[in-house]
């Protein structure tokens, strides 16, 4: 369960700045503050040197926030230094998250030049009014333009992030978003059901009845998504992730497999040597601590066998591979299989189409 090797193969880097804060998002981020950035980048570099001897990287994921909120020179410096300190020789997948309207052809080319080979573009929707609802900083035209820039620059592996279940969204308009997305032929699509995350404006509005959700509609959108994308030639390899053959994200697989990974930057998690820890969720403090030579770790837990098993079940079930049947208590899994929530194939069990939408409920039922 979960490869334990001497050297860590997966790296996550968190860039906590966004041009504009979206009202539904609870990732750790803040408004881009130009004065903070240089010192912060130095901290990232310092932190990366600390892990230099621990890694032999195969995948890198630079996420956020909005990594492309950094200027080209900043990106260039950061990535070059990373490659200098860390063993990038075996990297085969290097993703960067990109917010539409934060990427120019030059920046895109620079990224490719530096070795980034996968771009993840946060389109969210192809409906202008929904972008407004989501408080996005970009328009649908900018989103399409950014997509084209990435293609033109030479990205051969592009992901488009989408959100459904947006207040006011109809099944029809979601279908249009899917249609438009597919017409662009990205290699990978992530289609997330809108989650009302605590501590967000959206959550507050829901709680106070300012927005309502229509669960039945969300269910229909969910099923439509699966059908539509599978029909368009994408394989749903995880509840919210779809890819053309050969384009599944290796980095994501590492998470769901329980493999080891290291994270740099504020709020970043690491899973290494039987521990899981998270850096402090505060850019300034993170920066100060790293500069002062203090561990920026905020929390640390031991990932023992039982925890591993639970995670393996909770996350593995969501994937197309599923988990070995013997991981599960038969008394619990039996009725779920009978009811059609779980699918058996060979020695493994995974969520069925019906089960996917109840993934959390089922996982809670099944974890020991």
């Amino acid at each position, binding site marked *: 369960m979960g490869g334990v090797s001497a050297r860590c193969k997966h790296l996550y880097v968190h860039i906590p700045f966004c041009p504009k804060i979206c009202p539904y998002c609870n990732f750790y981020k803040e408004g881009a503050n130009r004065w903070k950035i240089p010192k912060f980048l130095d901290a990232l570099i310092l932190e990366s040197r600390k892990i230099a001897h621990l890694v032999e990287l195969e995948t890198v994921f630079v996420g956020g926030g909005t990594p492309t909120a950094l200027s080209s020179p900043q990106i260039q410096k950061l990535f070059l230094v990373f490659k200098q300190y860390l063993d990038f020789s075996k990297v085969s997948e290097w993703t960067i998250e990109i917010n539409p309207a934060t990427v120019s052809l030059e920046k895109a080319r620079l990224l490719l030049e530096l070795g980034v080979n996968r771009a993840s573009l946060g389109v969210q929707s192809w409906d202008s009014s929904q972008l407004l609802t989501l408080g996005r900083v970009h328009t649908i035209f900018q989103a399409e333009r950014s997509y084209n820039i990435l293609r033109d620059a030479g990205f051969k592996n592009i992901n488009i992030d989408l959100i459904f279940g947006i207040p006011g969204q109809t099944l029809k308009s979601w279908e249009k978003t899917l249609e438009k997305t597919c017409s662009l032929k990205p290699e990978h699509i992530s289609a997330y*059901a809108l989650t009302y995350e605590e501590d967000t404006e959206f959550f507050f509005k829901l709680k106070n009845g300012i927005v309502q959700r229509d669960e039945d509609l969300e269910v229909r959108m969910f099923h439509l998504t699966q059908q539509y994308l599978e029909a368009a030639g994408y394989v749903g390899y995880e509840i919210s992730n779809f890819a053309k053959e050969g384009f599944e994200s290796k980095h994501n697989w590492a998470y769901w497999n329980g493999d080891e990974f290291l994270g740099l930057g504020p709020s970043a998690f690491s899973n290494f040597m039987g521990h899981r820890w998270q850096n402090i969720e505060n850019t300034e403090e993170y920066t100060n601590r790293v500069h002062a030579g203090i561990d920026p770790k905020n929390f640390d837990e031991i990932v023992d066998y039982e925890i591993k098993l639970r995670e393996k079940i909770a996350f593995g079930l969501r994937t197309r591979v599923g988990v070995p049947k013997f991981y599960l208590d038969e008394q619990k899994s039996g009725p779920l299989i009978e009811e059609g929530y779980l699918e058996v194939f060979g020695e493994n069990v995974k969520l069925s189409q019906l089960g996917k939408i109840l993934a*959390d409920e089922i996982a809670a039922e099944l974890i020991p």
Partner: protein
Amino acid sequence: MGKTILRTRNFCIIAHIDHGKTTLSDRLLEFTGTISEREKQDQLLDSMELERERGITIKAHPVTMWYRAADGLEYRLNLLDTPGHVDFSYEVSRSLAACEGAILVVDAAQGVEAQTVANVHLAHKHKLVIIPVINKIDLPNADVEGVKKQLEDILAIPGEESILCSAKQGIGIGEVLEAVVQRIPPPVEEDEILRGLVFDSVFDGYRGVVGYVRIFSGSVERGQEVTLMSTGRHYEVKEVGIFTPKPQVQEKLVAGDVGYFIANIKTTAEVKVGDTLTDGKRPAEEPLPGFQEVRPMVFSGIYPINTADFEHLKAAMSKLQLNDAAFVFTPESSVALGFGFRCGFLGLLHMEIIQERLRREYNMDIIATYPSVVYQVEKTNGEVVEVDNPAHLPDMSVVREIREPIVRCYVLVPNENIGDIMQIMMEKRGTVEHTESLDTRRVMITGILPLNEILVDFHDKIKSVTRGYGSMDYEPAGYRAADLVKLEMLVNGEVVDAFSSIVHRDKAEARGRALAQKLKEVIPRQLYQVAIQAAIGGKIIARENVSALRKNVTAKCYGGDITRKRKLLEKQKEGKKRMKAIGTVHIPQEAFIEVLKAN
């Protein structure tokens, strides 16, 4: 004749609930210097946490005080504070049996209430001298003259005998004590053979059973060989003492004394309340008149949520039972709930208290089933069985008749509420025996009702239609045949025996529907559709569905999320564990509680 113990007085304090018995006791303790300023706290005798939180007395508490009276002599006064709630009225009878007199406390603002009447009857039965005390005269709405008149009219107690008092403000306390000395007759010792009335017992982990005893004749001391007359077993006394209110060791207890004895007795079961303690070598010929053994009136199943806790639960219950002889339990099993216990209680308050103590003091996660009274079921072959668990009702095809316990109920209400009360009594399948005007404002309505019907909300209803002015009390009045049926609730086609109840045919359908509706509300949507049905004699009369959960999925699971996500799932898991799984359906604890409330 016998020897009079001139300087001892034994009395108890009786009253309707909340009229101020415990508060008055506190004042008496202070006035006589039994407790120092330092030890002072409100309702001192209510020592149990639950008693203090709820502000009610559950157990009777004896205490000995010394009082120098106006005549210059010092008297030993033994006081027994008693509980006011009907459920614990047997505690009152015990205390009465140990006394020669009673202080009757009446709230100056509330006046005579149902339990005042009932307690006075009890006191008369025991031939006690009654000292009426009108308490709470400090209240702005106190109506002393009115209460005096009620005493005369309702209870035939001369109004001028009453002492005016405010236990809260310490007014009239001296007069109460003087009256105790002057009006209550001193105990009389017939001969010198030891006779002690055991009126309570508690269990002490270190010393075994502590028996509470009132000595009527003879004496008892350390080293003496004694016997309990109902069992004939012999013991050697290890210690005797009195309560001040803390236990205080004494050389010996003599006639007239109220105190305790410890004699290496291992279980409270050996020390029957009402038993007579006598000398091992020179035993009394006849026991003291005991009093009726308490019989549980209400039964309910108590089950551990986690089957693994069965033994724990058993141990916890045994401990509670040590100090509460009225609480009984035997193992039983339920199809739905697994292994648990059938428990007998004096009433619903008693039931609630036991359940709460199990939860609170013993940290037990438990589920309690719908309370049931004890039915007498006469089968077609003439055999009569007692059924305290609806699940055990024999098949109706072999049942000739079901008889249910009935009570005589005294309801005291303002005149204008007569109509409402009659209405409520009718709804509760009761009949009114008679109505009696007590004074110009109030009537006492005596009715016969099924015990089952008054258990849950009868008292609340009376309180609410009378805006708090009504009160009630009841006593068992035998059994009566009735057209009763078993109402069963099915979850996904399986009978959940814990939800079964025996109800009157006319009410069964409405109740079945209400229950199904209630369950639908409290059972959360889950992975599987849940069908809830109500059935009478196998015939489905109501049906509700809890539709299956539609959606519960976290969309994005990135690396950092893993811990958070797992913890959420673990929490969800814990939540499920706290529910009872019946087949694949998780039924939350509240469901069992809501079923109690649905009426």
